[in-house]
């Protein structure tokens, strides 16, 4: 004969056993004794009444916890607290990076000069391309600003609201621009980032 398992005995003590289990307990002295023992132990444990501090204690404790929480500092993720305000900055940063990577791929000779078929040497488009390629991100205050602002934004959070482009999407869009569009993009980027000496293209027509 199979006796009841511990969880079945607990079910009987709780009054939620199945009819088959309850029927077994009714006819089995051993299992019924276990149920009685369990209920007796539960009564013993429950005889120790709950500690109840003074009602005055709760506001005091709440205030104390509130102070401790505020001492913790504001740990809400930057992305949530800034919300969409970060989106334009992030999008600009992504575009600048994609521009550089895309153009390097387009010219096919990374770091070997600016061989843009549609952009004559010294033209504004050429200047913009130099701007995009020659700036070292680590030395660029704008890049550092974007890096610092986005330091606590992980990819998962940025992707959820669509702040990240689809893989290859920016490159594809960039490659579809004609010369005039690239010049306009370069002009916009230069306005956004600000013209500085280190960004000025070299050579005639600069």
């Amino acid at each position: 004969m199979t006796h009841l398992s511990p969880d079945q005995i607990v079910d009987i003590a709780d009054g939620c056993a199945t009819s088959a289990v309850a029927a077994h307990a009714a006819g089995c002295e051993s299992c019924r004794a276990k149920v009685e023992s369990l209920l007796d132990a539960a009564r013993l444990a429950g005889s120790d009444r709950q500690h109840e501090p003074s009602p005055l204690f709760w506001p005091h404790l709440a205030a104390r916890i509130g102070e401790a929480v505020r001492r913790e500092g504001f740990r809400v993720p930057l992305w949530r607290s800034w919300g969409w305000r970060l989106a334009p900055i992030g999008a600009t940063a992504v575009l600048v990076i994609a521009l550089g990577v895309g153009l390097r791929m387009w010219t096919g000779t990374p770091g070997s000069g600016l061989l843009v078929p549609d952009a004559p040497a010294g033209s504004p488009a050429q200047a913009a391309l130099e701007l995009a390629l020659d700036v070292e991100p680590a030395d660029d205050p704008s890049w550092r600003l974007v890096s610092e602002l986005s330091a606590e934004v992980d990819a998962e959070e940025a992707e959820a609201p669509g702040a990240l482009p689809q893989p290859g999407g920016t490159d594809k869009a960039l490659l579809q621009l004609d010369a005039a569009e690239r010049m306009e993009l370069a002009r916009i980027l230069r306005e956004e980032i600000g013209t500085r000496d280190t960004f000025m293209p070299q050579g005639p027509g600069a």
Partner: protein
Amino acid sequence: MSTRAEAWPAGGTQPDWTLTVVPSTQDESGRTSPLSQLDDRGLVEVCLGGRVDAFDVIVERHQRAVYQLCFRFVHRHEDAADLTQEVFLRAYRGLRRFRGDATLTTWLYRIGVNVCLNQVSGRRAQETPLDHAPNIPAAGDDPASSFVRAREGARVRAAVARLPRKQRATLILRVYQDLSHREIALALGTTVGAVKANFFHALGNLKKLLADEAIEKP
């Protein structure tokens, strides 16, 4: 709006005066803050949006349950208050991880059990001295019966403190915090079957410990 404090235990001595506690979710004119109208999930969202005062409402709602849980592990008012603060600090730090699969209460219990077990692990289970016995004399209790009740309570607490960790946590959550087996399973990160088995063995061990102690100290 004010709330009449209902903190005295059933059967406990009821004072002949009444105390009105005004929670901090009310402003000075007595109006209820809109935050207090939100449910727990709403408060979590608002808090994650940057409003720390939403967490104050969470604390006011749950501090009593968390404190009672902590007290069951340490049996000292000051230690229980410290642990309660630690539980809420951890909850605040990890609020983003609250997914809403369980209730906020269950989630807080889960943090509370971990904090308490870490705190008491390594400590030798000790009997609560009678002068720390926290029970308020019940109405009509004479001093002798109060003393007997306090001594019995201390014996039970000492026996509970000697139970294995999971059995102890299960028994506390079931008997003193009145959680269902399912809620306990969520709080302890285990299955309902394991909770029932732990509860069964916890009560069996408790009875044995109390019987052994009665033999040792007749």
